[in-house]
Every structure is written in structure tokens, then in C-alpha cells.
């Protein structure tokens, strides 16, 4: 009924603009782009997203598409104003109860209790909306989630009050398909260029075969690491070496004397070390240094082996019984004798020219903690102060004080006496059943940890909610005491104080969470976790490279935050952060070791996030690049102008069969001849083509196969872009659009809701405010947190 009335009203009021310019294509019979205006009501709550998109495309001059009569600009303005007016009639009641997502839960538990177990990693994946996984509406609760939270609360509460359970556990990490260098004799390395014997990473840390792991250790204590390797040193090599590193420091080295570490018939070799570690994350690395040294001279490596070449083993003995050298009876026919002769010759040849497989770690086992430190950690003890309970009434008072403190911090607001009473009765109930003081506290703490007051934050207009909003925005965790006290004395609502707190939070190490979560989702870096570039086409892609790629972008963004640079650095900053692995991937000399450091990129082929391997890989297919995906990525993430889904009845552009970029270009050109397709592809494709010199894992290339890369293209307005630099110039010219895009994403992330009516104006104001300082990062953030939607979130 409502729908029908709406539709009728719409017919009566709909502006002539629609029939003149739109319904020719966007009506029932055709519904181009999936938009059927006949079925669309007047702008309102239910369809605001569609109307906002229509508005944006008309305003940008993208609709009506090229080749159709252009509306006069005044005509378009009247139309968009009509949409604005209609949309202004409703006001959607915002969802303010925001469930903590997995990251927020882990961080908050860490800061509340000093327990860093990251148990939420096992919770069901949080759904995301508008590109982020902290959106109030999308964060749901299933029985499964609650079941896991109940179990997690119990473990966390025990851990906080009694310390780690102290159980020794073994965790095994297996390298599914170890990558290692291989060579045949005469020496032919089947490996990418960076294996060059003249210039390679002698530490072995960035070579294939090294092992890198970030592991979260459950408790302070001693751990035993068992490292298992495979591969060989060619016969007559001098001994090799394996090194073991913790947090970037070499802690142990062993000689690798065995010529062969493993084979079908052999038990792989293993090395064991023991080390005392603190609870929390540590970087564990094992590597084979100087693999090319001490090889027999025929490998032509540096410092060749001086050991004498042993005589060739007798092929008949070595291969007796297998390997195809048959044992023949004396009266064997001549054919069989000849067969045997050939098999022996082949075996001799194999023995003389052995295949060499480089050394690689295949498995690491971590067992521990052994003899863990008993009791709660120093951090837990600090956060949960004792109060000398001694039984009876005194115990209850002590519990009450402790719970008041914990609940206040957990709920991120003062607790009422009634709330406290209920927590105390949880404590007392346990005591009544014969539980100890600590057990009673544990149960009450469990209650706190599954209480809706902890798991949700009601993001309303209260001053405490404002403190939480700020800290979950910039820290993904609860406010600290300083922030809470500013909420408590009500000074936080003053823009200067709020902006000052925002700058303080950004400068704190905890803002790392903001970088990981915001940038990981905004730039789709999280996608890297699941991409699987084709092994045959990109043989040097491994997990270490994958992690290094993500790290570069995080460090780059962190630098912009910490040094308070202009956000325009993201577009074309001529610096980045590299370790040796990534520097070799980029072909940038002079960077050694695993440590990331700032690298000047002037005169190189890199600069800005668009040339980061992370972005280039995340916007490619497993086997090759896609100008369409990359163009779409730029429009969506840098210019906030996402292309609409492809219209129906148009064959999907199928790039996957295209083997080389020449025919891909041709195919895209054909695709663009269709005007409906052209309206989007004319924008997407040239943007993507300008990055064609970077392959699907972000390496620089001038050719694909035998075909020279052609990165040229022209935007719909005729602007030629034929290189990444030209693309960056275009983006810099459109810096206001880029700033608006980033601002809208930040606002969405900060408020945990999608764009709403009125936000466009807010974004404009924020961008204008930040323009005078050339979009300095902290100015942008300060403008966001003092904007009306941020200050007034939850108010109607």
C-alpha cells in the first residue's frame, strides 16, 4: 500500500528531468544498469542509497551518458536539489549500539585486564558494510558468537586473576610448499634474478627457504623451538649454516654439515633451541646464510670450496635394485644388455651432474611454556589491584571495590550502585557454593565480560560515549584514564580539547590499530591475506613477501600519521619503507636485512601507494593484471566514485582468457563501443592501463611475454595519461576529490555507519578546513572529530 501510494505520488511530482533524460533507458522495459525508475519511489528512507547514487552521477555529468543530449547545468541543479529536498524529509533513527568487533574485543581485553590472548580471532568473522567491519548495523550476534564469548570470558577471567593455565603445548607450523633455490649442473639456477650469486642476501633472511613467523606466546616462560629443514649441499661443499633469530636478533647458529638433509628415505634433520620469552607477539625467523659460498668451484659462487671432489660413486652400486639398472641373468638377450648399458650411462650422468636443491625450513615446532612464571602477569596485577581480603564482610567489601573499578573501566562509564550490587551477588553466589575469593571474582569478571554493557557500546550523546567514540576510532580500544577524566569533567566536548586529545591519541603507539584496521580495509590490503598469485607465473611470491608488502603500506601510512604529513603524500610521496626482500622485489639497491627503513624514492619508478606492491597485488587476478580492477580500485578508494554494477544483457567483459595485454586492450576498446559500457569503462580502463608497467605482484616490467607494455590512455575529458606519474598528476589535480573521498571513508569508519544525508556538506566543510594546511593529516582528523556528526552521534 505504502509502495503504491509512494509510486503515485512520485508520478504526480516527478520532475520533467527524469522523463526527458533518464527513463529512455532506465525504465521497466530496459532498466539499464539495473535501475528501473518506474519501480522507484520518490526519494525516501528505503531508497536513499539509490537516489544518492543517481544524484552523484548526474552531478558529475556521467549521466546521461556520452552521446546523449546533455542537460543544461541549471536543469541538472534543479533536479539534484529536488532529490536533496525529498531526501531531507525523513530522518533515519540511527543504530547506536555498536558491538565490539573482533579486533576491538581483543584490544579492549588487553587494555582492561592485561590479558593478550586474542581469543576473538576464533570468533565468527564480523560482517562488513560500506567497506568496514565496525558498522553498528552490520555487527550482529549469533548464538554461536555468544557461545564463544562465554568460553572466552571464562578463560580471560582466569588468566587475569590466576595467570596462564601453564599447560605446555606444542604448536607446529608447516611450510606447505617450501620454496628453495634449485640448480642443475652445469650450473643453471632455476630462480628469479635476485638469486644472482654476485649479489644476493648473504644473511639468507630474504632468500627462499628462510622461515618467518609472528607468533603470540601465551605466557612468560621458556620455549623450545624445533626447526626442521630439507634440501642439500652439493657433494664436496664446505659446511653451511643455519641461523635462528628472535625479534630481529640472531640468537643461535648451527653448522649444517650433512650433505643431504632429507630425502624420501631419510629422516629430516632438526635443530633445537631453547629461549625464554615474554608473553605476547614475537618474530621468529630461521635462515640459511651464505648459501652460495663454499660450493664446489663448478658452481662459480663466491669463496668456492677447497675440499677435494670425491671420486664418482659407482652407478651400478648406487642404483642397484632401483633406478632402472636391472640385474640380468648371464643368458640375457642382447636387447636387454643394451638397455642396461644405457641405464648405467644415464645413472653415471646423473651422479656426475647432481641436481642441487637449496636448503629450506619446512617446519617449526614451538613447545612451551616450560616452567612458566606462575600467577598473573605484572600488567594484570597492576590493572587489578588487590585489597588484602581476609574473609567475611571484609572480603565482600574488597570484592566490591575491585568490581567497581573493573566494571567502570569495562563499561567505559561510571557504574551505578544497583549494577554493582548484581556483580557482587555473582561473587557471593560463588562463595556460597564454596568457591574461593578469587573464584568469586573470576565469576563476577566473567559476568562483566559478557555483559551487554561491555560487549556493546551505546554510541549516544553522552560525554563518556564521546570518549569511547574517539578512542575506538583512533585506537580500536577503550579510552585510557586521561581521556576518561576529560570526559568526567566534561571538558572533552570543547572542540579544542577534543582535537588535542585526537592528536595525543594519534601520537600514541596504540594508533597502530587505526592504521592496520582503517588502511587495511580502505585500501583493501586485507585482501592480501587471501590472494594466491600463480606459482608458475610468480615463483618468487611467498608469505614473507606478502607480509612485507602489507607492512610497507602500513609503515608508509603510519609515517604520514606520526610525522603529520599531508595526505597528498599518499598519492605521490617520494619515499617509502622497505626491507631487503621488498627492495629486491622493486629492484632498489642498497637495502639489506629484515628491518624496514625509510628509503628515498627520487628517481626511482616508485612513489605513493599506487606503486605499492600491496595495492598492485590486491587489485590483480592470480595470473595477471587487470586494468579494469585497478581502475575500479582507484575510482572507489581514491575518488569515491564507484562505477555501478555492469548492466544486464551485456556480456560480461571476460578478461580471464586474455593472455597478453595487447588483445586485452583491443577487447576493452570493443567493449567501450557499447555506450552503456563506455560510461564506466571510459573512466576505469585508462586509469588502470597507466599502471600496466607493474605486474600482478607489483614488479616493474616493460614487456609482458614478447609484447611491449603500452600504458597509454585518455580520460573521457581528453586528458592523456600514459604513465604512473601522469596518473599521479591527475590525482593531485583532483586533490579535493581525493581528500573528500578519504574524509568520507574516515567518517564512515569513525561513526560506524554509512553516509547519511547531510554528510556531504560535512565532508565539504572538513575538506575546506584542511585545505589551508595542504591537508595535513592531524588537521583532517581534528576536523572530523569536531564535526557535527561526530560530536552529535546518536542524537536525532
Amino acid at each position, binding site marked *: 500500500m505504502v509502495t503504491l501510494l509512494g509510486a503515485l505520488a512520485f508520478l504526480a511530482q516527478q520532475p520533467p528531468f527524469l522523463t526527458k533524460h533518464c527513463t529512455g533507458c532506465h525504465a521497466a522495459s530496459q532498466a539499464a544498469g539495473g535501475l528501473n525508475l518506474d519501480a522507484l519511489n520518490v526519494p525516501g528512507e528505503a531508497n536513499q*542509497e539509490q537516489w544518492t547514487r543517481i544524484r552523484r552521477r548526474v552531478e558529475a555529468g556521467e549521466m546521461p551518458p556520452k552521446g546523449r543530449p546533455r542537460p543544461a547545468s541549471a536543469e541538472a541543479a534543479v533536479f539534484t536539489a529536488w532529490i536533496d529536498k525529498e531526501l531531507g524529509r525523513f530522518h533515519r*533513527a*540511527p*543504530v*547506536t549500539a555498536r*558491538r565490539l568487533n573482533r579486533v576491538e574485543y581483543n584490544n579492549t581485553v588487553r587494555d582492561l585486564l592485561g590479558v593478550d590472548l586474542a581469543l576473538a580471532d576464533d570468533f*565468527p568473522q564480523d*560482517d*562488513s*558494510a560500506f567497506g568496514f567491519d565496525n*558498522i*553498528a*548495523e*552490520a555487527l550482529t*550476534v*549469533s548464538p*554461536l558468537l*555468544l*557461545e564463544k564469548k*562465554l*568460553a572466552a570470558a571464562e*578463560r580471560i577471567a582466569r588468566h587475569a586473576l590466576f595467570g596462564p593455565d601453564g599447560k605446555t603445548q*606444542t*604448536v*607446529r*607450523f*608447516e*611450510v*606447505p*610448499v617450501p620454496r628453495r633455490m634449485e640448480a642443475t649442473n652445469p650450473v643453471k639456477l632455476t630462480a628469479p634474478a635476485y638469486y644472482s650469486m654476485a649479489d644476493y642476501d648473504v644473511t639468507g633472511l630474504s632468500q627462499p627457504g628462510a622461515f618467518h613467523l*609472528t*607468533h603470540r606466546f601465551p605466557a612468560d616462560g621458556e620455549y623450545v623451538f624445533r626447526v626442521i629443514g630439507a634440501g642439500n649441499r652439493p657433494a664436496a661443499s664446505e659446511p653451511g649454516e643455519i641461523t635462528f633469530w628472535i625479534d630481529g636478533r640472531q640468537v643461535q647458529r648451527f653448522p649444517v654439515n650433512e650433505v643431504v638433509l632429507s630425502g624420501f628415505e631419510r629422516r629430516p634433520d632438526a635443530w633445537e633451541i631453547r629461549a625464554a620469552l615474554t608473553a605476547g607477539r614475537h618474530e621468529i625467523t630461521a635462515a640459511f646464510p651464505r648459501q652460495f659460498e663454499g660450493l664446489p668451484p663448478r658452481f662459480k659462487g663466491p669463496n668456492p670450496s677447497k675440499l677435494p671432489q670425491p671420486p664418482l660413486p659407482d652407478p651400478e652400486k648406487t642404483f642397484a635394485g632401483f633406478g632402472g639398472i636391472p640385474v640380468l641373468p648371464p643368458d640375457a638377450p642382447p636387447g636387454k644388455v643394451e638397455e642396461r648399458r644405457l641405464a648405467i650411462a644415464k645413472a653415471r650422468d646423473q651422479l656426475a651432474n647432481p641436481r642441487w636443491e637449496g636448503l629450506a625450513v619446512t617446519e617449526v615446532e614451538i613447545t612451551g611454556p616450560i616452567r612458566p612464571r606462575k600467577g598473573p602477569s605484572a600488567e594484570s596485577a597492576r590493572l587489578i589491584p588487590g585489597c588484602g581480603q581476609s574473609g567475611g564482610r571484609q572480603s565482600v567489601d574488597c570484592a566490591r571495590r575491585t568490581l567497581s573499578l573493573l566494571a567502570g573501566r569495562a563499561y567505559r562509564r561510571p557504574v551505578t550502585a544497583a549494577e554493582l550490587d*548484581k*556483580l557482587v551477588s*555473582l561473587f557471593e*553466589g*560463588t562463595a556460597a557454593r*564454596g568457591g574461593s575469593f578469587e573464584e568469586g571474582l573470576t*565469576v563476577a569478571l*566473567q*559476568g562483566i565480560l*559478557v555483559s*551487554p554493557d561491555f560487549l*556493546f557500546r*551505546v554510541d549516544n550523546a553522552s560525554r563518556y560515549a564521546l570518549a569511547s567514540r574517539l578512542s575506538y576510532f583512533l585506537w580500536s580500544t577503550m579510552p585510557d584514564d586521561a581521556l576518561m577524566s576529560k570526559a568526567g569533567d566534561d571538558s572533552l566536548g570543547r572542540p579544542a580539547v577534543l582535537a588535542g586529545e585526537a592528536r595525543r591519541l594519534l601520537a600514541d603507539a596504540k594508533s597502530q590499530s587505526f592504521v592496520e584496521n582503517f588502511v587495511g*580495509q580502505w585500501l583493501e590490503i586485507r585482501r592480501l*591475506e*587471501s590472494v*594466491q598469485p600463480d*606459482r608458475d607465473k610468480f615463483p618468487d611470491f611467498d*608469505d614473507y613477501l*606478502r607480509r612485507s608488502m602489507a607492512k610497507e603500506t602500513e609503515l608508509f601510512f603510519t609515517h604520514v600519521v606520526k610525522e603529520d604529513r599531508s595526505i597528498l603524500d599518499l598519492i605521490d610521496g617520494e619515499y617509502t619503507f622497505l626491507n631487503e626482500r621488498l627492495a629486491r622485489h622493486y629492484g632498489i639497491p642498497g637495502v639489506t636485512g629484515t628491518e624496514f627503513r625509510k628509503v628515498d624514492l627520487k628517481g626511482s619508478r616508485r612513489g605513493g601507494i599506487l606503486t605499492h606492491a600491496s595495492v598492485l597485488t590486491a587489485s590483480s*587476478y592470480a*595470473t595477471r593484471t587487470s586494468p579494469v580492477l585497478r581502475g575500479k580500485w582507484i575510482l572507489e578508494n581514491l575518488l569515491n566514485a564507484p562505477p*555501478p*554494477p*555492469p548492466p*544486464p544483457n551485456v556480456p560480461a567483459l571476460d578478461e*580471464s*582468457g586474455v593472455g597478453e595485454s595487447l588483445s586485452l586492450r583491443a577487447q576493452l576498446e570493443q567493449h567501450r563501443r557499447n555506450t552503456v559500457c563506455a560510461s564506466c569503462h571510459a573512466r576505469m580502463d585508462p586509469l588502470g592501463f597507466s599502471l600496466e608497467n607493474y605486474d600482478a605482484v607489483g614488479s616493474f616490467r616493460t614487456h609482458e611475454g614478447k609484447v611491449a607494455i603500452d600504458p597509454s590512455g585518455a580520460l573521457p575529458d581528453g586528458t592523456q595519461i600514459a604513465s604512473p606519474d601522469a596518473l599521479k598528476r591527475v590525482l593531485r589535480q583532483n586533490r579535493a576529490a581525493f581528500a573528500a573521498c578519504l574524509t568520507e571513508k574516515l567518517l564512515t569508519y569513525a561513526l560506524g555507519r554509512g553516509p547519511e544525508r547531510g554528510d556531504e556538506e560535512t565532508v565539504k566543510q572538513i575538506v575546506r578546513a584542511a585545505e589551508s594546511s595542504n591537508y595535513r593529516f592531524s588537521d583532517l582528523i581534528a576536523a572530523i572529530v569536531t564535526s557535527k556528526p561526530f560530536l552529535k552521534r546518536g542524537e536525532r
Partner: protein
Amino acid sequence: MKFVTRKHLPRRTVLRGLGASVALPFLDAMTPALSAQAAAPVRMIFVYVPNGVIMRHWTPKQQGAGFDLPRILEPLKPFQQDLFVLTGLAHRTGEGPAGDHARAGGTYLTGVCPKRTTSADVEVGISVDQVAVQALGNRTRLPSLELGCEATRMVGSCDAGYSCAYVNSMSWRSATSPNPPETNPRSVFERLYGSLDPDPDPAVQARLDANRKSVLDFIQDRTAELTRSLGASDKRKLDEYLTAIRDIEKRLGKAESRAAAPSMEKPGGVPFAFVEHVRLMNDLLLLALEADLTRVATVMYAKEGSTRSYPELGFSDPHHPLTHHRNNEEWIEKVTQINRHHASQFAYLIGRMKSIREGDHTLLDRSMVVYGSSISDGNVHTHHDLPVVMLGRGDGSLKPGRHLAFGEKPMANLYLTMLDRMSVPVEKLGDSNGKLEHLSGL
């Protein structure tokens, strides 16, 4: 960010031998011991493969009994007498403009066209498995099990303006609440057998159980109280929470079976290789079915629109782009191989189900296992003539071993028939217009 390839807890740290004390689930620890079950129950399982199949290598040429299984279904040959090939079923509600993969995922078990939105206001319909769950009540420790074998985290909108929820989940406990599948075998194991160790002293354990109950009561009170003070939109969020609490409390009240000692060791994380991952998930499902921890399950071998590649087949082209083969024979061949590869993994599950005895029957006999896709021709996204096989005899009345070709019928008709075999009479589900005939004989 974690890029751990594989975690593995060796047997010795987890298992202390059959019949000995094993880790028990949180809930299980609170429930009374085993209540004997009478007749073997009927199970309902849905196994999903995405992106359609090459129908000419799927559909048998002959109808009725005694048909030849085409290439893709050949791995199921040992179970031909337990199998229906059902031809002519359709999900017409999945048709429409761009967004076929999302709609296919959304309609598959619901028969309802999902609402086009990238926002959180997702809406489709309750799925058949959850209709069964609601009607049967929580007779088993886990009302249902949702498993997935593709662990990728979806970012942003998934298909032409449709939310990722439609491809992430095929089970929907209500029109607006998806049941996302668990993809980590270790987490599935812990759901079945628990992550907390019980206390060896029964008196202490009883106290712990009472403590847990008091925590549940506490949050139920508090959530109800908080809900009253909030506006409508927030109420909805807190209601979800309250429902979850009640769901768990209800289960506590039931006499449930304590999980028997598992016959497999606790898995590590998500295996690298697809085959290994599916195998583990199949094994976990078998554990759950055999011990009657659940009777309803959904398994997604991959998500609709999946771009997973299967290097074990000797080529690494991602699945989805290949299915847009534009009649290129080489691509069709590769898709056929992927389809057959999936069917082989499924055949393992069926083989194991057939080997598990339950009185005079096998576990397979007492089940209805549907395998198929919500798209038939992946090249042009057709939602009719869907590839569907069903194995098992349900309550004993189904007469498999036949290829039944229907004039077009809604897929949801099959679901009504299945619900009927589970003694869950339902008049309508999604676009159903009756039950599917002839499954019990001609």
C-alpha cells in the same frame, strides 16, 4: 595481521585416549549425561558447489533406473543405487539483472530473491535447514552445523550491489540473520568437543557449572533491562543478543548427549590445500553426525562466485572466470575437471556415511544429502535446470537409484518433500508450489 600457514596441535596434547577425559564444550559441561536415543534419526545435509557445472557432463542421458553416470558424477558410481539425479529443478527467483552469483547464493536454500543492498539491511528468507531446526527443536547438542571450505575474508560489496552476506552464508535462521559457516577445522572441533577442560573432581565441576549458569542469568537480566531503555533500532540489536542468551539457556535445559571421545585428533588451523581442507571438514561432519551431535548441516565447498584455483588439477586458472568460457572447449574441459574434482571430495563423504552402521541401516540410509549448485550454466548464469543429486533414503521411504527428470519445478518443492520426510510438515517455503513427487516410487 596473521599469515600463519598452518597450526597443528599434536595428538598427545589433546587426546588422552578413548574413553578418558576429553575436553568438553562449555555447554556440554553443564548438561546432564546421555539420554538414550530410540530409532536412528533422519539427517538433512546440503553440500554446495558454486558457479554452476558443465551440464552436458552432468545430466545422464537415460531416465529412470539403470542410467549411465556422466563424467562429473562418475566419482559417485559406487553409490548409484543410493542416488537420485533430479533434473528440471529451478530457482527462478534468482533471475534478474547483474548480481546472479549473489542471488544464486541467497536463493539456494530459501527460494527467495535476496534484497539488493550492500548495507546491513540484508533480507532473504529462512532457509530449509533452519526450518527443520526450528521445528525439531534443539534435540541435539548443536541445532545445526554450518561449514565452509573457503576461508577468504570478503571485503566490501560482493556482487553488483549485493551484500557479501548472500555469498558468505547459505543458511539463514531468519530472513535477516545469516548463519555464517565456520571455515576453521580447529574451531569446528572445539564446537563439537569444547575448548575448556573439565575439572576432574565432579564436585568442583558441578560448582563451575552453577557459576556459569549464574553468569547467564546475570546477563539475561541485564540485557532485558538495557533493552527497555533503548530506542527501536538499538532494541533490535540487543534483541539479537537476548535471543542468543535464551537459545543457550534453552539448550541447557534439554537432556543432551555428552560428546563421546572424538576419534580424530584436534586439527590445526585451516590447511593450505583445498583437498586437505575439505577432507577435514568432511571428517568433522561425520563425527558430528555419527555421535548425533547434530542432524542438520550445510557445507559450502566454495562460495558462489569463487575464484579459488585448483593447482592440484594441473592448471591454476581461477574457477569463476573459467566458467565464463564462451564455449571455448579448452575452458569447458577445465571447468568439467573442477566439477568432477568437487564431486570426488563429496564421494568421500558419501562413502564414509555408507560405511557407518546404525542398526540394520547405514548412516547414509538415514540421511538425505543434497549436492549441487544454484546456477546451472555458469557461462550465462541460468537459474533453471539446476544440477541436483540427492543421496540416501531419508526415513526409509525414498527409493533412490534413479534419474528423475521433471518438467520444470521449483527447487523449493524438493525441500518441502525433504522436510516432510523429517516429519516437519510445511505448506510453503519460498517459491514452492507443492511437493516433489515420485521420490518414493512411481
